[in-house]
Structure formats: C-alpha cells, structure tokens
C-alpha cells in the first residue's frame, strides 16, 4: 500500500519552504560577509591598499596588546551607555504622555515621532552645527540679549556627540516604551487605584514594572546603535571624541589597512553581539521586534 504524504497546515516542510528565501538572503548578505571579514583578520597587511592572503595572527596580537584599542572600546561602551540611559530618561515621559493622553488624534503624535526619519540622517546631524556653533542660534541669541560676551563652546566635544545621538535615537526609545505601555491592561491600574493606591503609587507598582521590557528593549537598541555610530562623532565631535567606529573607518579608509580594519570590525561585532545575547537570554527579542514594528 502506498502511503500518501499530504501537506498539513503546520507541516515543517512548508515552514522551511517559507523561511528558505530569508535564510538564503541572510546567508549571502549577512553570514557570508561576516565570514569574509573574519577571514580577512588573518591576512597580512603589506602597504596601504595592498594585503596578501598569507595567514598571520599579527592583527589580533596588535589588538590585544595595544591599549589604544581597548581604551577606545571602553570609551565607546561608556558613551553608548550614557546615551542609552539619557534616551531612557528623556524618552519615557513622551511615551507615557502619548499613551496616557485622551487626545483624539493620538496618531498625530506618533506621526510626529516618525517625521524626523523623513529627513536625511546626515542633514539632521549637520543641523546641530547651525544650532550649537559659535554663530549658531543659541550663541547668537545669548550674545544679542547680553547674557554672554563670548560664544559658549558647545560644538566639537563629547556633549555635542551625545546630543546628536540622542536626537537620532530618541524616537526608537519612545516607540519601544509606548508599545510596551500599550500592552498594559488598564484595568490593572484602575484596580490598584480602587485598592487605595495614589496615582504615583499605581505608576510605581503597576505601570512602570509592566513597561520595563519596552524600556529595556529601547536601552539595548539605543546602546547598540550609539556604540556602533561613527558619522555623529565625525561631524559633531573633535578627534578626541571619536568612537570605535571611527577607528574602523580610519583604519580601512584612511590607512587602507583592511586586515586590521576587519579585526576591529569583528571585535565591535562580537562585543555588541554579546550585549544583545545577554539581553535575549533574559528578556527575549520579541519586545524589540514589537517596538520596531509598531
């Protein structure tokens, strides 16, 4: 007797078929390039723009023995963490406001969050030069009103870099927290209030704990994006305010040293991947997906 193998709704073969195109894309456009980069870390640098495939561990040796690189890595993690925390503090309140408001056209508020994405990231970053610069809006206004005599040095320092990254990352944080707040059953807050909680207590005991997954997802996202950024430090910072991404850029584009540049890229990938893995282990990725997908 011939057994007929019929397709079922949850047939694993169907699942594999549906997932196959994405898998192929991921392998060719993510896994393979990273593998090539990893291979490059063992290539030998000859001179600017020239390398050979003679295998060496010199690049890794240089990375592990030269404190210049570890110093920049730590600094990058510090700046990334500060930016993420500031995003968390500054982003929670607008998210809470959008969630709690009874304004009929809430979609308009959400649209306002997305509007900045319609303008080029580089132009948005450049705009800070016209705001923070010596002849920028703030300095000109302060001098005109006689509050200061000399322009304040607000540009080309770490503060300007963090400000630029806040500008770019805040919407990600707000959206993540908002999605998390939207998932809260509002009757829980009513129940807390009916049991004698003040508004502040209800927020502290119910709303805040239940929105923490969104906050954590936002923190991770902002941290990874800030730590991997190089355009903002390039435009708004001085040389001293460079981050690890700028080191990679200079090594590949300036020194034309691809093997060392590949080594630094893999290091940043592994370090940021480690933080993402820790987050996934304890919180899961679903919250970030929700936050990004709306």
């Amino acid at each position, binding site marked *: 007797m011939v057994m007929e193998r019929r397709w079922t709704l949850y047939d694993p073969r169907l699942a594999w078929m549906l997932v196959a195109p994405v898998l192929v894309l991921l392998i060719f456009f993510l896994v393979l390039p990273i593998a090539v980069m990893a291979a490059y870390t063992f290539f030998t640098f000859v*001179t600017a*723009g020239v390398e050979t495939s003679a295998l060496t561990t010199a690049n890794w040796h240089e990375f592990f023995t030269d404190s210049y690189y570890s110093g*920049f890595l730590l600094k990058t993690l510090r700046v990334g963490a500060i930016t993420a925390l500031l995003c968390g503090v500054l982003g929670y309140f607008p998210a809470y406001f959008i969630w709690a408001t009874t304004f009929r056209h809430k979609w308009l508020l959400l649209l306002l969050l997305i509007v900045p994405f319609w303008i080029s990231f580089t132009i948005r970053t450049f705009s800070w030069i016209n705001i923070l610069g*010596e002849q920028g809006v703030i300095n000109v206004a302060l001098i005109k009103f006689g509050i200061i005599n000399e322009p304040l*040095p607000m540009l080309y320092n770490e503060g300007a870099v963090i400000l630029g990254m806040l500008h770019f990352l805040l919407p990600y944080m707000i959206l993540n927290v908002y999605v998390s707040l939207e998932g809260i059953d509002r009757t829980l807050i009513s129940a807390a209030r009916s049991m004698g909680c003040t508004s502040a207590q209800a927020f502290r005991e119910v709303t805040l704990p239940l929105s923490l997954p969104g906050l954590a997802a936002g923190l991770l996202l902002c941290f990874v994006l800030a730590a991997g950024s190089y355009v903002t430090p*390039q435009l708004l910072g*001085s*040389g001293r305010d460079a981050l690890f991404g700028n080191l990679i850029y200079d*090594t590949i584009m300036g020194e034309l*040293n691809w093997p060392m540049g590949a080594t630094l890229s893999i290091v940043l990938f592994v370090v940021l991947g480690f933080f993402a893995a820790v987050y996934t282990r304890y919180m899961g990725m679903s919250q970030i997906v929700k936050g990004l997908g709306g």
Partner: protein
Amino acid sequence: MKLTTTKRLERLHDRHANGDLSRRTFLTLTAAAAAAAGLDMPWMRRALAAVQEVRFDGWGGTVQDAIDKYAFQPYTAKTKLKVVQGTFGDEDEIITKIKTAKPGDYQVIHSSGVNYYIKYVNGGLTSEINEANIPNMANVLQPMIEPFRKLTPKLSAVPYDYGTTGIAYNTKVISPEEAKEKGAALLLDKKYAGKVGGYDDMTTRVWYAALATGQDPNNIKDMDTIWAKVRETRDLAKKFWSSGAELMDLLSKGEIVVTDAWSGRVAALQDQGQPIGYLDPAGSYAWMEDMLILKGSPMAECEELINFMLDPATSIAVAEGQSYPPSLDPTKVKLTEKIEKLPAFDKTGTMKSLTFADPTYWATNEDAWTKQWNRISKGA
C-alpha cells in the same frame, strides 16, 4: 562584412565535409560556439555595445562645479558622451571603493598627484594611456609629467592642475602684517587656541610641523619633535576639517580664524566676499592633481575626454573656475591675467619656486606616519 554565427557554423561544416578540418577540431569549435551562444546574455550585448558614458570621480564643491561647467557639459554637447560624476572628500575613500568594485566601474579620478599615484600603482589599479590619443599633452608642463613617468614609464595619469596648501586667516581677527610676520607659526600661536583649524591629513600635518621645527619636509631628521609639534597644533585646534566644503564652512562661519587651507578654496571664499586672507609661507606645501584613468576603463573614450579637458580654452576656463592654475606650460600657451594672479602660479614653467613632496620619500613613510597621525588626532 560581419558574419553571423549561423554562417560561421555552416562554413565550418563545409570545411569539415570537404576534409579541410578534422572531426575533433570541428567538434571543438562547434562546442565552443554553442557554449558562447548559450552564455550570451542580454547584459553582454549591452556591455559590448558602444560606450555611452564615462565615469568621473572628483573632489566635489567649487572645483568639480568648474570642471562640470567648463569641461564636461561642453564635451557632452560635442560628443553626446555623458560624464557620470561622483565625489569624494578623501582620496583614500575612493581607493577603498575602487578596490571593492569591478574594473571599469570607476574610470577617471581627479587624483592628488604622485603621492597617491603610488597607491594606485601598488594596488594594480593603473592603466596604460596611449599618449598619441592625447595630443594636447604636448602643452602640459614637463616638470609635472616627469615624476609620474619615473614611477610608470607608460602613464596612467595626466597632470591637470596644481596648487598649494598655505595659511588662511580671518582678516577681522588677524592682520595681513601679523600673518606675514608669523607665517606657519600662526598655527601654533596660543593666542588663537580653540580657533585654529587644519586639514585632517597626515602629509599636511607632518609638513607644517617640519616647517615649524625648521626641518626639510622631504628629509626629516627628527620625527619625535615633529610629532610633538603635531600634538601642539592638535591641542590648539578646534577642528581638523576633512573636505573642502567643511573648510569653507568653518572659515566662513568664524568657527576657526586660522588654518592651513587649499589655495583654490580660499580664492572661492574671497570671491564670495568673505574676510579671508591667504599666504604661502616659505616651503609651503605644493601639490599637483591629475586625471587618472583606472584599469578596465574604456581607454579611447577616457583619453578623448582628457584631451578635451586639456584643450587650452577648456583648461583655462576650468582653471579660472576652480581657482587653481592649470598644468599648461605658460611658455607654450598664453594664459589669462586671472590665472597669473592665482596663488601658487609659476610663470617660469619650471615649478622650481614650489616645494612638492618627494613621492619616494613620503611613500616609504606613509603607512607608519598615517597610523601615528590617526592616533594623535584622537588624543593619543
């Protein structure tokens, strides 16, 4: 008369039938033809079709605007051949892109002279120009061509313009007398701490440190004092700029009041009425630029384009537009008064009044010094 594939096969068959061709040879040729026909793709036909455009990559801004307006647009009008343009802020950036692209994707580069020519040569990216196709090369200054020919007897590039990296200063803050008196030392004047700028480039930084320490930039004896001076400038600097546009922005907005600067960009600012002065101190860094044809480019079309660009009328118009003297020999071609007044212009045609970087010396030290400069610029 062109033969079709079918006709060719029929002839082969006839020769085989007549005994002129062995069976093995006939089958081999037929198989090769079949494979070629089977592999024939629509894009191959397009690729083999006549060249419709040439790709050019340059420095953008006022320089490229002038090249586009006075060379490319008239060239396209004359030949119907389009010049597709790209820009870069730093030539290493475009070299990286060329390395990752297919030969022919990038074709003509407005390159920074012999120092960079070595990088293209080392990277196996150069082509071989048929100079007979560029008759206007006869007017190009021989002292500009010679350094290229020393590296590759068969040229891949043709010198096009030259200039200097001198000192630009805000005349509202620094008087021309003070600038003349202090010269390159202005970049190290503590009075202007936090208002100093500079090109984010190893060669420029080391060159000016050599001048500040009284050393010959083409034969530096004490690198420790050089790096100490580079650090001194870094600590006084507000920002090291990385493109001509950024230089102009920083100077015109008053963010910096003194910087080393490209003569042509300063001339462009002066044309806009900005209060910017310029001087070339003794030993000022002179450089030349060339039109480099990359390997894999459509040579005949690229050579034709460069020949058009070197035509005296075109070259003079571009030079006036970009404010850099052309590579034309002033003893052979009558240049305009405006060009003769440009900074760095050498009326003798010998280029002896300008100090260029010795390409061999700088190429020897390039890797180590670039790495060290990158570190110092980041606070090391």
